[in-house]
């Protein structure tokens, strides 16, 4: 209970705030917008925070990146190293590499910032992928959010390129090998491949003396601008359309249930930012990542075992290892081998991902607006396809580590590669099949796996037999996977008929025989 003093203080604060808002409103007319903003309701299921993890990782990337950029030198000029790291003493190297080694050993807090920056990048992409999966499996990309899906996939693409360009900046042996491979992939494009590769690099590999400053501009300026801009658009659309939410008691397609932005959601979001910073800087201090001083400066005559890209490019590297040695030559021209796994495969993959909202509409014949999410089990076909895709990418990612897996498990990489080649289409098929049937199984149990079951609807037919309808859930025609009720062969009950717009509440209290007594038994 508030005291007199507390109430007086609150009144004084309100007066100050009133004056401040008035001044602002006189100039910009902001009061209405600010009130709407502060009162805005955000559904706060924990899985909705994964996108925020990505966003805050990006913020930390920008902050640590600025620090690194103050010390990094994007120059191909050759210098001789004379610093504290003895094994490199007296060696010639590019200034890019030397500045990174100095950043790691001679700049205070340089190593922590560099490592935190790299860990943040890995977590950034992991969060984007998990967020994308969450959106996919819950159907949040459906109308009216297709545009946000497109923006999000573009964010993923640019983030991958941004990460690749970032870890290539130090010009060490590991990342230089990656640049060599990408140069070869671009070179393999028919007609314009060589021209394109030479243009990007400013000449034949390893590129002109301007290459690293060019890469630096791309990594420091072009991609971050695009990322920030697209991220802003992504958030603005989300703001305008309001976030989706899982179905639950009291939730409809027309209302939104959650926390107010001010103070609840803002402070919780701030705490998430702090925890993300804690994890990233903790990793940055305690777990070594990309020790460029061990790899040495890049040389086209050197290579190291265990040459893999960062995890988010691993699927492409694995594709290059798994792809058979096909090359097509005729009439004096050839389509070189890296073209297929390096250009064609990711092209098709991203085309499908971009087109998914349209595919989904076709697949489920669903052109309506949705603000309530599906649970993955509600759309077994979509979930199965998603799981199959994940297993495909996992197979390819495993393939990028065949030499390490072979070393660890004492299996030849020939055997591993062969297994993974077959696995790249066998594993997704099997996984998709299993996922499909697990969804149907879960639908039958009718309860959220972690929450308390609220009870099923039991109906007695004319012959006296009892049938379980599952839970009442007027979630459109496909609420039960389009097969009716799995296993029981029973027709959709009366609850299914109630698919009117707006009345998508759960449970539909006025229908059904054993209409659940409402949550909490009220």
């Amino acid at each position, binding site marked *: 209970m508030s005291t007199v003093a507390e109430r007086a203080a609150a009144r004084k604060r309100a007066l100050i705030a009133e004056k401040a808002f008035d001044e602002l409103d006189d100039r910009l007319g902001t009061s209405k917008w600010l*009130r*709407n903003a502060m*009162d805005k*309701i955000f559904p*706060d299921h924990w899985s909705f925070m994964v996108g925020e993890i990505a966003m805050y990782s990006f913020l930390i990337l920008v902050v640590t990146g600025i620090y690194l950029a103050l010390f990094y030198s994007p120059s191909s000029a050759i210098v001789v190293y004379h610093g504290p790291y003895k094994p490199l003493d007296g060696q010639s190297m590019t200034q890019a590499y030397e500045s990174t080694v100095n950043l790691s050993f001679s700049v*205070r807090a340089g*190593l*922590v910032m560099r490592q935190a920056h790299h860990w943040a990048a890995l977590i950034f992409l992991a969060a984007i992928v998990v967020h994308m999966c969450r959106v996919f499996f819950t159907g949040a990309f459906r109308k009216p959010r297709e545009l946000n899906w497109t923006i999000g996939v573009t964010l993923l693409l640019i983030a991958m390129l941004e990460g690749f360009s970032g870890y290539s900046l130090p010009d060490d042996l590991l990342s230089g*090998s990656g640049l060599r*491979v990408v140069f*070869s992939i671009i*070179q*393999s494009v028919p*007609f314009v491949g*060589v021209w394109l590769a030479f*243009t990007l690099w400013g000449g*034949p590999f*390893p590129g*002109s003396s301007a290459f690293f400053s060019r890469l630096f501009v791309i990594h420091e300026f072009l991609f971050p601008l695009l990322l920030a801009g697209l991220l802003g658009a992504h958030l603005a659309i989300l703001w305008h359309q309001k976030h989706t939410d899982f179905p639950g*008691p*009291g939730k*409809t397609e*027309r*209302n*939104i*249930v959650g926390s*107010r932005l*001010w103070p*609840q959601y803002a*402070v919780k979001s*701030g*705490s998430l930012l702090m*925890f993300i*910073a*804690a994890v990233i*800087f*903790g990793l*940055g*201090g305690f777990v070594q990542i990309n020790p460029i001083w061990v790899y040495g400066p890049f*040389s*086209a005559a*050197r290579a190291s075992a*265990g040459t893999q890209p960062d995890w988010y490019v691993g699927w492409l590297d694995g594709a290059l290892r*798994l*792809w*058979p*040695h096909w*090359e097509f*030559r*005729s009439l*004096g*021209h*050839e389509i070189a*081998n*890296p073209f297929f796994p390096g250009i064609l495969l990711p092209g098709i993959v991203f085309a499908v991902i971009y087109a998914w909202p349209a595919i989904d509409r076709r697949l489920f014949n669903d052109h309506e607006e949705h603000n309530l999410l599906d649970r993955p089990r509600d759309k077994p076909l979509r979930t199965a396809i998603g799981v199959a895709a994940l297993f495909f990418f996992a197979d390819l990612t495993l393939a990028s580590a065949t030499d390490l897996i072979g070393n660890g498990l004492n299996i030849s*990489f020939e055997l591993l590669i062969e297994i993974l080649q077959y696995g790249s289409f066998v594993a997704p098929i099997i996984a998709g099949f299993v996922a499909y049937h697990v969804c149907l199984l879960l639908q039958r149990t009718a309860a959220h796996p972690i929450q308390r079951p609220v009870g099923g609807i039991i109906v007695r037919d004319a012959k006296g037999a009892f049938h379980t309808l599952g839970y009442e859930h007027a979630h459109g025609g496909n609420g039960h996977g389009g097969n009716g009720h799995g296993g029981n062969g029973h027709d959709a009950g009366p609850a299914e008929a109630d698919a009117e717009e707006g009345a998508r509440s759960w449970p539909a209290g006025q229908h059904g025989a054993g209409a659940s007594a*409402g*949550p*909490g038994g*009220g």
Partner: protein
Amino acid sequence: METLRPGPAEGERVAEPPAASFPRVVTGTHGPEEGAGLGTPWPDDVPPDQDDTWYPLKDDPYKARRMEYIIASLWAVTGGCGIGLMIAYWTGGQAQVEGALLAAAFGCLGAGLLLWAKFLLPGQGDIVGSRGEHHSSPEERAAVVASLSRGTDAMLSRRGFLVKKVLVPVGGIFGIAALWPIASLGPRYGRFLYHTAWYPGARLVDQFGKPVLASDVEVDGIMTVFPEGHTDTDIPANAMSPAVLINIGGDTIVERKLNEGFEVRYGGNGLVCFSKICTHAGCAVSLFNVLSMQLVCPCHQSTFDILEDCKPVFGPAPRPLPQLPLGVSPDGYLFARSDFVEPVGPGFWDRGGPA
């Protein structure tokens, strides 16, 4: 219509919100509707009144005070870590110490904020609002079409030929003209990919520039070699030149005839020399499996059979490694009798042409 669970009577407070995840219905201040402005009626499935000032410890000042102390001590740890960071930086810095202090600082800050939000701040997770209407009305939609047509009807119907027949083609021409300079962005690559820095008579040298004698590499030995004077692979002209010199001893090697009828022999003394640039994606190939006489590339595990003229026997590499024809000078030094007879490295569109 759902059955709304009636909440406690006015003035009566419960210690915890009801266990059911259902919007609380408590009299109090009117919660404004989302985005539609004050005064607009609520949709009828949403309760009209919500208390926007309630938080879990509102009625328990003792517990609230204790929670404040917990948060304050967490934030005190953050402050301590800040001082620690200053000291660490001042004394030269150390990655693990800095990382630990930063992690602890941010972690305690976040934990304090979280406890604050969960227990001491209102606006908790059961506030209900209306999504409002984000579509425009049918009148607005008709009006926007009318606004557009105001221009397009005039532009295209009566003066159609100005836009369709003049502006579009001219714009197309100018667009192409604007893009034309892109062609000069990249250097002309000419015959670059067809030649390396090797030339007839070029001596083989090791990575430090020391010329290689024919007797240097022992049987089952491998050495990375460069053309004399071209050991710096940062220079693009040298980057495709590295080669591996292998001593295969008494084993015989299969000679491969290329499509164009070139014949490549090995240089005698058991010495053979192949390009180190993988024909798959350009990494340096030099893993030497002596037992199976194979060269393996570490990047994608392409495997080349040395005795079959480095033909690829496993992995994605599509073509054999080109061979460098060797000669031995009278004083015992190795030299190249010519450049590689085919383009080295990964494939490209025009590679099928003559060298």
